[in-house]
């Protein structure tokens, strides 16, 4: 029987089909698979953090409640914050960085595929390290910000702070490695013609985020090292009796912490800036202003940290300086908001789920930003700080902002990643329930805060007027949780349908929509040549109509990096070193040495294996 060219192509495609099975996921260096790993892991942690929140809300639903012991309550709010920031929002953003950046710039992968895999495994192990503390009955309980000298050995003798301290160090390594990777990727792997000012706005915001990561994480690394020396080796950096200063911790922490909040929000800014133009069927209003305002926010973000410390008595000069710069930083943010409004103004809006969440983002973020500007005034902040008014603010920007934005991105890019469009009707149910539940939960906190309800209290007495709003918030929290149940049902239902999403279901503008859904391992059959911003819209204009559905190719002649397990081995070595540090009083240096040996073994093999 004669084999035709088509038979040969099919046979080749089958032989080179994307590998399946657990081992292929463990050794993957494909940015798209790594992105999905990040997403699945992060979403699981998000649900865990959500359960922690629900437990908190049950406890606070009634005055003098005894649902949770005070110590457990402390663990829950600490882990809720730590989980949501480091194990949910950041890695959900990383899912999008991983999946989209190479696609949006027209590349086949990131600059360092194995380093990319390493970052994911370190993140997973760091998240597990943090949460294994629950099994020891010693979950972190010192607040996500770990103020000294509560964190000293004297006041926190147990393992709780150790788990937090070392867990965060592990996670920091993942973030730093990824930041080096994406920074290099964006600068170096752009397709021909993809000038910086032609890059998709999501790539720009992500790029700025990497710069923030690179500059902010070393500071918290040092702070955690100093804390570790205080706790393990008897130094007194933050211990007053030894001449140290607890406030120094706050400075170090917030020098990291403030850029961190921009790390949390910039990707969502980028996502929403991609979605609104597509669904308004108009280019982004003021692209250059969006880029430069992002850069300005990032740069200024290093100069405002002590607005988290207005109540610590820094003196009038420091207070004034930090207040002014904090108010100043509202300006570039305002520019963005007006540009989003300018984008949809006069547009012909298609109301699909992604744009609901994107519009929800804009509205909720405005509210969060307004309360933020209110805290920028030190006298006003003296009333607001450490009350529920602050809790309201940061949930409006982090949930109303980041989570709404990330959810918008999930619905928007789901077809590209999984080849299926999420159900539209369930998507709207998700949106409305999320919006209602979110506002019911967090809006009353503004009122409670100004009426004097403090933060981080495990209960409150009757008769202060806190009962009704707290109960309302608890109800709201459950509605919010239910909205995510609908999201899960949507995912499950969609997964049972046919995998037939077109390459470009939304009539979008950027390169990722030019390739099949989901993409083949090498992304592009041919590396594209870019002549304008919004290259797909430009191509459609030139063609006078929609582009043909891209064909899948055999991938012959396209060389992709080999899979590898050395990133995982190295990640295990690093985690073992941290575990060894934790057990230093039982194992002496041997745990650290053993972990270090595994790490070195992993790195050497990684360095000397053929990369492909």
């Amino acid at each position: 029987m004669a084999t035709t060219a088509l038979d040969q192509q099919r046979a080749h495609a089958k032989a080179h089909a994307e590998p399946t099975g657990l081992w292929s996921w463990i050794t993957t260096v494909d940015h798209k698979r790594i992105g999905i790993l990040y997403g699945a892991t992060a979403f699981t942690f998000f649900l865990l953090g959500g359960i922690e929140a629900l437990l908190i809300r049950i406890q606070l639903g009634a005055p003098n409640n005894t649902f949770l012991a005070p110590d457990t309550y402390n663990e829950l709010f600490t882990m809720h914050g730590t989980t949501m920031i480091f194990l949910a929002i950041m890695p959900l953003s990383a899912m999008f960085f991983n999946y989209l950046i190479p696609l949006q710039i027209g590349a086949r992968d990131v600059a360092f595929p194995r380093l990319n895999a390493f970052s994911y495994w370190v993140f997973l192990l760091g998240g597990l390290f943090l949460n294994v503390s629950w099994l020891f009955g010693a979950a972190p309980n010192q607040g996500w910000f770990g103020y000294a000298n509560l964190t000293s050995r004297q006041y926190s003798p147990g393992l709780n702070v150790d788990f937090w301290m070392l867990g965060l160090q592990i996670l920091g390594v993942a973030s730093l490695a990824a930041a080096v990777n994406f920074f290099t990727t964006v600068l170096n792997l752009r397709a021909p013609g993809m000038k910086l000012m032609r890059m998709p706005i999501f790539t720009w915001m992500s790029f700025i985020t990497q710069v923030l990561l690179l500059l902010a994480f070393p500071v918290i690394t040092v702070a955690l090292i100093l804390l570790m020396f205080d706790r393990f080796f008897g130094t007194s950096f933050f211990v007053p009796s030894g001449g140290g200063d607890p406030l120094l911790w706050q400075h170090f922490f917030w020098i990291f912490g403030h850029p961190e909040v921009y790390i949390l929000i910039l990707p969502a800014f980028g996502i929403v800036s991609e979605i609104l133009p597509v669904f308004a069927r108009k280019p982004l209003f003021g692209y250059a202003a969006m880029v430069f305002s992002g850069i300005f926010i990032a740069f200024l973000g290093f100069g405002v940290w002590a607005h988290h410390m207005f109540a610590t008595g820094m003196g009038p000069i420091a207070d004034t300086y930090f207040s002014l710069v904090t108010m100043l930083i509202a300006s570039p943010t305002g520019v963005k908001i007006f540009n989003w409004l300018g984008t949809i103004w006069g547009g012909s809006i298609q109301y699909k789920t992604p744009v609901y969440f994107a519009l929800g983002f804009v509205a909720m973020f405005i509210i969060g930003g307004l309360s933020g500007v209110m805290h920028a005034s030190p006298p006003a902040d003296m009333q607001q700080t450490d009350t529920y008014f602050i809790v309201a603010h940061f949930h409006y920007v982090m949930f109303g902002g980041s989570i709404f934005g990330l959810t918008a991105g999930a619905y928007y890019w789901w077809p590209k990643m999984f080849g299926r469009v999420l159900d539209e009707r369930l998507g709207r149910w998700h949106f409305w329930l999320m919006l209602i539940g979110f506002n019911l939960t967090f809006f009353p906190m503004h009122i409670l805060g100004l009426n004097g309800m403090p933060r981080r209290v495990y209960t409150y007495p009757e008769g202060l007027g806190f009962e009704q709003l707290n109960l309302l918030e608890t109800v709201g929290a459950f509605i919010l949780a239910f909205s995510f149940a609908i999201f899960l049902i949507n995912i499950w239902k969609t997964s049972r349908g046919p995998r037939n999403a077109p390459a470009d279901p939304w009539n979008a503008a950027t390169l990722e929509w030019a390739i099949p859904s989901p993409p083949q391992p090498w992304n592009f059959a041919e590396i594209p040549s870019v002549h304008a911003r919004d290259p797909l819209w430009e191509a459609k204009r030139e063609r006078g109509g929609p582009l043909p559905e891209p064909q899948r190719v055999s991938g012959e002649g396209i060389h992709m990096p080999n899979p590898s397990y050395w990133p995982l081995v190295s990640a295990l070595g690093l985690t073992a070193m941290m575990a060894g540090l934790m057990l230093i009083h039982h194992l002496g240096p041997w745990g650290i040495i053993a972990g270090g040996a595994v790490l070195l073994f992993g790195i050497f093999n990684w360095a000397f294996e053929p990369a492909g």
Partner: protein
Amino acid sequence: MDAHTSPAAAEEHAHPSVGVYVRIGILLFVLTALEVGLYEITYGEHAGAAGAAIQPFFIPLLLLLSAGKFALVAMFYMHLKQDHRLLSGVFVFPLIIATVLIFGLILLEAYHFAFARAGG
């Protein structure tokens, strides 16, 4: 920055000669000797009137000498002078933030300690 140049083409910038490298090495050694000399004159065992006169300028002078060494190593040994400007940017921008951090912390903590000692 949008041109696709091959890695080989990018390395076509002038390499300093061995002689230049050695001369810079000697200069670095001399600058170090000056730093130590400055310390000895100002605070050393045999410090005299000259030392007292220099004292107010000691720190700025010292930092100037080290800045010189820093720049020499960065520009010539690390090749920043000949390399793509982006690499200089990637190095200098964090240095700016680092300087802000150091000075900010010193100022804030100095105030705190002064305040704490005075009344707190």
